[in-house]
């Protein structure tokens, strides 16, 4: 199951070659959300996490981020098998909880993330150029002066992707929204993610609901429901009995979706 060396040239994976999660568990009070989760993510790999609602998919991402406490070990190992420092993690949240009237432009969001200069006082043209470049990557340069509340679901997702890639992270965590992004937007998003992955040899963990697009883009799939029920290539997982129990026949097998 583990790929070691060979496939990727050393040193090309932005300093980190692998995320090793062993025996990870998360509890909220007495309620067990996740237990005994094991996962290895190698550089350049896209791992998709699927599962029913409440399976703990978003919680897994938040545990990796360090937002929720967890048991078990979580190690980042770099290309030379050394324990890496806390790596740079890019994160695209499932949704932003701000009200649509919040006075914040796309530029403000970028500047507050990437610069220490006070957003409330200045608008340096150098930073503006960087932001435009970053947005260019996801075909969203025209959105720079729009307010966050006025973006559509798909636009917001692309802006957040551009933000997560600035600066280029060791590990990219994507929490796909359940709704609010149309089919075309979703396909565009997956194409962009795949392209970024190839270009920058990124490690990506993607929480997703679209089984068809995962089959096209993911190297590895993790079927999660409190713990790992099945993992492997999309083909392997989709053929497993656990997958059948959760998604039934109309999940993906027929390809009728």
């Amino acid at each position, binding site marked *: 199951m583990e790929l070691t060396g060979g496939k990727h040239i050393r040193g090309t994976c932005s300093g980190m070659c692998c995320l090793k999660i062993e025996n990870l568990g998360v509890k909220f*009070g007495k309620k067990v959300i996740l237990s005994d989760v094991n996962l290895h993510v190698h550089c350049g790999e896209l791992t998709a996490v699927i599962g029913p609602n409440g399976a703990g998919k978003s919680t897994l991402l*938040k545990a990796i*981020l*360090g*937002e929720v406490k967890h048991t078990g070990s979580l190690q980042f190992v770099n290309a030379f098998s050394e324990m890496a420092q806390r790596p740079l*993690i*890019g*994160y695209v*949240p499932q949704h*932003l*909880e*701000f009200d649509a*009237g*919040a*006075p*914040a*432009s796309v*530029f*403000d*969001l970028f*500047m*507050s*993330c990437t*610069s*220490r*200069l*006070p*957003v*409330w*006082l*200045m*608008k340096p043209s150098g930073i503006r150029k960087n932001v435009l470049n970053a947005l260019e990557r996801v075909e969203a340069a025209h959105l720079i*002066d729009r*307010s*966050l509340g006025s973006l559509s679901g798909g636009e917001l997702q692309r802006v*957040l992707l551009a*933000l*997560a890639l600035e600066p280029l992270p060791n590990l990219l*965590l994507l929490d796909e929204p359940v709704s609010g992004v149309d089919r075309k937007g979703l396909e565009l998003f997956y194409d962009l993610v795949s392209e970024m992955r190839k270009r920058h040899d990124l490690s990506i963990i993607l929480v997703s609901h679209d089984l068809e697009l995962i089959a096209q883009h993911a190297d590895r799939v993790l079927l999660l429901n409190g713990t790992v029920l099945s993992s492997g290539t999309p083909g392997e997982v989709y053929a497993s009995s656990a997958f059948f129990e959760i998604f039934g026949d109309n999940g993906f097998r027929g390809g009728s979706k």
Partner: protein
Amino acid sequence: MMDAWYRLVDLVLPFEWTSHIFMKNALLAVLLFSPLFGLLGTMIVSNRMAFFSDALGHGAFTGIAIGGLMGLMDPVWTAALFSIAFSVVITLIKHYSKASTDTVIGVFSSTTIATGLVIMSRGKGIPNSLLVGDILSITPGEIAFFLGIFAVVIVLWILILNRVFLISINRSLALSRGINPLWTEMLFTAIIAVVVTVSLQWVGILIINSMLVLPAAAARNIAGSVRSYHAFSVASALVSGTGGLVLSYFWNTATGATMVLLAALIYFATLAVKIRFRK
């Protein structure tokens, strides 16, 4: 230094109302107070902390009561320490508790204000200035002290605003950018606590939260970016602050309350603008 200010006022604003020294002092004080309220208010509103900052006012009130009880020379320091501690406790509870935040704040806020009232009522009674404020009695020494606070807050705001703003957008996102939300929030609330405490006796506990929330709420109606949000909020605070001072002089009304009424007026005006232009 104050002489220079007095001369400047006589030169620029040669009116009857500025001929009094207390009005000149109050005007300078308002020019310092209001921008701070405008600045801090932006993130209080964006982080949905209006009720929280109200509770901080209550904490500061009790802090002053305790400071007076301990008979220290200047109760404002005890009060500042107490309200910083109070703000830290509420932030921690807010962070770790799963209970509804506004209930928790409500409980703490009412406990504190009752404690303060009990302490004060046993002593000299409750000074009116703490309730409705008394900006007309501010002295040059106190203004100088506030100038120091003003400078510190501006510097801190330059340093932490980006982080506070990002947390207001999304905590997880902030975390992924290496920001510690808890520490940032504690620093932010401690700043509010100090500003509220030192300005409490001039602005008044019944007034202070309105001056923090209303200008920012008004700015939010019409701003489209963080910069314009701050600019409108500070401008709105300055206009209602100075306007309130002048109007209260001619109407012979409570200064703080007049300021708040003006701020409310600006809020409703911007709300109308927002409704008209949002199609």
